[in-house]
């Protein structure tokens, strides 16, 4: 026994197979009694070398790999990557496809936040919310399936637009969801927002100041919980977000509760964005008519020889953007998702760097849990809303 017998530091291991670490996150916790002295995250269990793989794929092929980063918000990843390629190519996409992208991305944000709420509440001990959230996610998955044909890895966005037009009945189904959803959020809030146990578990836990949040590179709802009013959709609008009317909710104290409040309000705002985008959905093409780089509309393949040739050439040979480099970012549900692409003018990207929001957000865990109780670690991880798929890549 060491000299300081009164202060015994115990090192314990949490994860990687622990339900509240949201995937394969491993934490080495150094505890003094029940108080956390130090936490060391170990990541990389899900490392698949996506950035290396990208260098051997064509620009179109890589879209499917982006689904597997943040697998709870595949549309945002698709869009982030495709916007970077479009910036590199310097092309404009049709208004209709921009609006479809907004609708799908905001539905994805709701879907991602629902899963966050479900698991976050479950971690802290509120079981009912879990079932409610998954009920709504089921509807959303049906909607995604209608448009993209898949429920999880959508790969719906294409360079120059989206894969196919919205199917018949899609708008009606989404409208139904959008009209129901505000009442659903009220249901969740009656269970949590003023719940005494919830308040005790989340108020003044995992506090991070605005300055620290910026210095640690937090983004998304996690930084807005600390009162920093920064949202990429507002500061650097992409895909016609500047035509949408919505507010960016912020917290004040930067604790777990504030991050919870911010995400709840964000779901409402996303719901309103979807409603607006549906009301003003323009008519026109869903993918740009740029034969060299954008896949032709699927319907034209049966009618036009040129379309078939272009389709064949793009799929077999790929596209060759000009040499250069771009960085483009979007507001994914977890925060700023950036893609840095270096092109050497060939059909494969020379280098792709993904800036995953969860990776950077997780970095500040140490700062947030120091001096708190072991049980608070679970609450803080939940409030950061991490996905190991994009942390490890």
């Amino acid at each position, binding site marked *: 026994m060491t000299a300081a017998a009164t202060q015994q530091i115990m090192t314990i291991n949490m994860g990687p197979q622990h339900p509240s670490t949201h995937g394969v996150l491993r934490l080495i916790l150094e505890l003094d009694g029940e108080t956390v002295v130090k936490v060391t995250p170990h990541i*990389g269990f899900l490392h698949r*070398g996506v950035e290396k*793989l990208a260098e051997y794929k064509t620009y179109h092929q890589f879209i499917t790999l982006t689904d597997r980063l943040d697998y709870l918000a595949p549309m945002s990843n698709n869009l982030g990557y495709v916007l970077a390629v479009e910036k590199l190519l310097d092309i404009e996409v049709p208004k209709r496809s921009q609006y479809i992208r907004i609708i799908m991305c905001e539905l994805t944000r709701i879907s991602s936040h629902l899963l966050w709420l479900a698991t976050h509440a479950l971690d802290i001990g509120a079981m009912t919310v879990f079932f409610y959230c998954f009920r709504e996610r089921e509807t959303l998955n049906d909607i995604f399936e209608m448009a993209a044909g898949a429920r999880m890895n959508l790969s719906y966005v294409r360079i120059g637009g989206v894969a196919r037009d919205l199917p018949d009945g899609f708008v009606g189904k989404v409208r139904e969801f959008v009209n129901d959803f505000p009442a659903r959020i009220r249901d969740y809030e009656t269970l949590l927002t003023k719940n005494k146990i919830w308040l005790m578990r989340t108020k003044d836990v995992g506090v991070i100041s605005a300055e620290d949040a910026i210095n640690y*590179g937090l983004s998304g709802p996690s930084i807005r919980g600390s009162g920093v009013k*920064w949202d990429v959709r507002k500061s650097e609008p992409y895909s016609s977000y500047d035509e949408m009317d919505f507010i960016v909710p912020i917290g004040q104290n930067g604790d777990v509760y504030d991050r919870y409040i911010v995400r709840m309000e964000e779901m409402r705002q996303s719901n309103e964005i979807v409603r607006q985008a549906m009301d003003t959905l323009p008519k026109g093409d869903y993918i740009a008519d740029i034969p060299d780089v954008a896949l032709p509309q699927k319907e034209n393949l049966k009618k036009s020889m040129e379309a078939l040739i272009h389709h064949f050439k793009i799929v077999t040979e790929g596209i060759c953007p000009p040499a250069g480099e*771009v*960085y483009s970012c979007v507001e994914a549900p977890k925060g700023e998702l950036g893609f840095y692409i*270096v092109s*050497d003018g060939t059909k494969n990207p020379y280098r792709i760097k993904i800036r995953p929001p969860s990776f950077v957000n997780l970095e500040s865990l140490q700062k947030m849990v120091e001096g708190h109780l072991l049980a608070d670690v679970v609450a803080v991880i939940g409030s950061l809303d991490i996905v190991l798929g994009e942390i490890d890549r």
Partner: protein
Amino acid sequence: MADVSAIGKRLKAKFPNAVTKVKTFRGELTISIDKDYIGRVAKFLCDDKESAFDYLSDLCGVDKSRLDSSDTFEVVYHLYSMKQNHRVRLKVEIPASNPNIDTVTDVWKTADWHEREAYDMFGIIFEGHPNLQRILTPDGFEGYPLRKDFPLKGRQPNSLREVYRKGEK
């Protein structure tokens, strides 16, 4: 998005020897910095009122050996300013044979994990980094996977299938 072209000039006025190249592509400003100055430039850009790059969006390495056969690595910094709402990209070239560069963790704490990742993937040594260890690859991993001379299928001696086949014999 604010106009960023003035930043290159300001930086040049402050550190005449530091800036080697200023380029704009697709509306993005890229400033190439001499290796010895990166610490000072980072501090200046962060504290300076007009630049106010308080947010490090991203930091990564690039292996340029197949791009211009120069045998150099590049460390690329993507900076963002919350106050001014503008972005800039800094690039620092370092020789592949001796990939050393000063850390920027004392300016932006978020650089910690980014630099560990660049070390893990490219073997770039960030001098002064508080805890420069591998971050994504497993314990005992050898080599630097994102270097261009590292094969896609890896360098592990046997694939699992070969290991199993040997066991059968």
